[in-house]
């Protein structure tokens, strides 16, 4: 099978070859090298596993996984696949169990993923059963390494992946901690079906160029503009990023109007502007922070609207975006209402996120016949150094190339 790497023309050229059209072969390689490779994959929030026995089911790529808390207070994760015939061990999205039992032939597993029970292992009335050499310890679903960081539960199939803090790097860690600095509560979960390959969504998250151009809401109501103070940080592996900006009411600017950009529409007004009303909760003035962790995790703070997102491939041309909206456990009722109302910005029907859901499909349809052709993906220079927002070198400076490079060589992989 031939492999096609994305090629750069070298410094100074803004173009790269359009990604090869996804094929079943590349999709399989992604599963093996990225999702089951040396990466940390987001599984759930620790807050979703409140007590011993609490579990959730999720996916690492397309591999179904169970995440569960045991009596020792530790979180364990293992493949949601019965060692016997391969049926799902847990069918529900969440629940609480003493042990897991496959419904098919009643093989059972403890909360750490060990096979502990085989129905009629010794046969019936002395007949049949497993051979004497059968050892349950040797059979069981694959177990994942688990790391919990700031209440985020990550899992990995790889023994080679570096410890989570090293994987994330100092700067990403600091900005995760900035948001997840105290206990959180889930206030809702939604799934957004994406009509495109999963990578198009991940790239969109890292592309801060589009945010204020596509999203009328961001620009018109000055939630996010390229001319605001802010920046982009891409970690050394190129896999993770943070982009952030600060609303500065004193610094209204005319750069969008002068260019006649659609997204700045002065005639667009809200009848009920309370949807955008908020309160200050971070001392640093950052009003928007979007953070991604390779391969498919996003932590979002848009004003007071907090969420984590999990991107999962569902075949070559579809993906699933799982949203978990959160608030802090010590929110006042008023603060909680603000979060609920601001959540209209995000999610499957969000004023902003609905557009992100659509553009991936537009690209996917647009490039259908363009295999081997070039697209311009770079803007603002070819350095990967953190960019500060000073036009005309927009904040997106570092976002294009490192993203693409990562597909070639997963973070942490040689």
């Amino acid at each position, binding site marked *: 099978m031939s492999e096609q790497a994305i090629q750069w023309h070298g410094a100074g050229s803004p173009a790269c070859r359009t990604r090869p059209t996804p094929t079943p072969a590349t999709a399989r390689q992604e599963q093996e090298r990225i999702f089951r490779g040396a990466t940390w994959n987001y599984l759930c929030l620790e807050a979703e596993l409140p007590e011993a026995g609490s579990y959730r089911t999720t996916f690492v790529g397309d591999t179904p996984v169970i995440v569960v808390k045991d009596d020792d207070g530790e979180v364990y994760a293992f493949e949601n696949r019965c060692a016997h015939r391969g049926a799902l061990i847990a069918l529900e*999205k969440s629940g609480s169990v003493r042990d897991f039992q496959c419904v098919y032939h009643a093989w059972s597993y403890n909360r750490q993923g060990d096979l502990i029970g085989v129905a009629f292992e010794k046969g019936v009335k002395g007949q049949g059963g497993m051979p004497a050499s059968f050892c349950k310890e040797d059979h069981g679903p694959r177990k994942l390494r688990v790391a919990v960081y700031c209440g985020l539960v990550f899992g990995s199939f790889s023994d080679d992946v570096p410890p989570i803090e090293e994987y994330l790097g100092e700067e990403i860690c600091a900005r995760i901690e900035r948001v997840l600095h105290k206990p959180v509560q*889930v*206030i*809702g*979960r*939604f*799934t*957004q*079906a994406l009509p495109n390959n999963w990578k198009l969504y991940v790239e969109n998250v890292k592309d801060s160029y589009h945010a204020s151009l*596509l*999203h*009328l*809401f961001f620009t018109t109501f000055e939630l996010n503009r390229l001319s605001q103070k802010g920046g982009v940080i891409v970690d050394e592996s190129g896999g993770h990023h943070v982009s952030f900006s600060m609303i500065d009411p004193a610094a209204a600017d005319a750069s969008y109007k002068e260019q006649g950009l*659609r997204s700045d529409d002065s005639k*667009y007004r*809200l*009848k*009920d502007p*309370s*949807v955008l009303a908020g309160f200050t909760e971070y001392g640093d003035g950052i009003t928007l922070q979007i953070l991604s962790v390779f391969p498919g995790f996003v932590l979002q703070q848009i004003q007071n609207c907090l969420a984590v997102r999990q991107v999962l491939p569902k075949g070559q041309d579809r993906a699933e975006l799982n949203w978990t*909206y959160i608030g802090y456990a010590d929110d006042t009722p008023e603060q*909680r*209402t603000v979060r*609920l*109302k601001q*959540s*209209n910005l995000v*999610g*499957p*029907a*969000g*004023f902003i996120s*609905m*557009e992100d859901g*659509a553009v991936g499909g537009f690209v996917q349809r647009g490039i259908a016949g363009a295999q081997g052709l070039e697209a311009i993906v770079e803007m603002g220079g070819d350095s990967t150094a953190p960019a500060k927002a000073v036009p005309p070198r927009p904040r997106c400076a570092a976002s294009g190339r490192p993203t693409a490079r990562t597909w070639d060589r997963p973070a942490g992989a040689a």
Partner: protein
Amino acid sequence: MIDLLRLCAFNAAYAQAIDNDELERWPSFFAEQCLYRITNVENEREGLPAGIVYADSRAMLEDRIAACARPTSTSASATATSWASRWWRRPTCGGAVARTPFLVVRIMATGESSVFASGEYRDRFVLRAQAAAGRAHRGVRQHGDRHAAGAAAVRRRMTRRIAVTLGDPNGIGPEIVLKALAALRGRHARACHRVRPADVLERAAAVTGLQALLAKLDVRPAGAMPRPPRASAT
């Protein structure tokens, strides 16, 4: 009072507004202070309050519709909505709580149809006059399926209108109608308007001696029939 028949009429009008793409009418189905939320079964079961749409005023719903008209949210499609009110009760005088399963089919420009949303409206209905008098509840919670963006609703404003035809202009119909109108009292009498055609009624008033009543009505000549606001799709 709200009965099942009125709920059905409401749901029919609601579905028609959506299917005819008269989305600007959609917020008018809700009380000024409403609660509109689209969620899924799992959130509902766990008591998680967020929605993929969460609006606590009619104005927020109007903002939603305004956003639909923006260029980035496009879809060349039509819908066909099916619904059935299966469960309802009247907890308080004048109000009602109802559950209405729905199915929205999206018809693409290519002719392909697919299920766009399925779920259940969980509505709290209030009568508008009572709402103005300070009735506490309005609100609705709605259930959509997973990522389906369904529409749901609650609403109010169920002023009943009855059309009475005059029958044969040369028969006794016009006289009977005038006498019936004369027998109405109070707000029922005020609810009567736009009577036509003028010449037939004037003849009937002369016969019945009800010219005084006719003077209070908005009588229009036959040629002045207003057209319906929008031709409905055929």
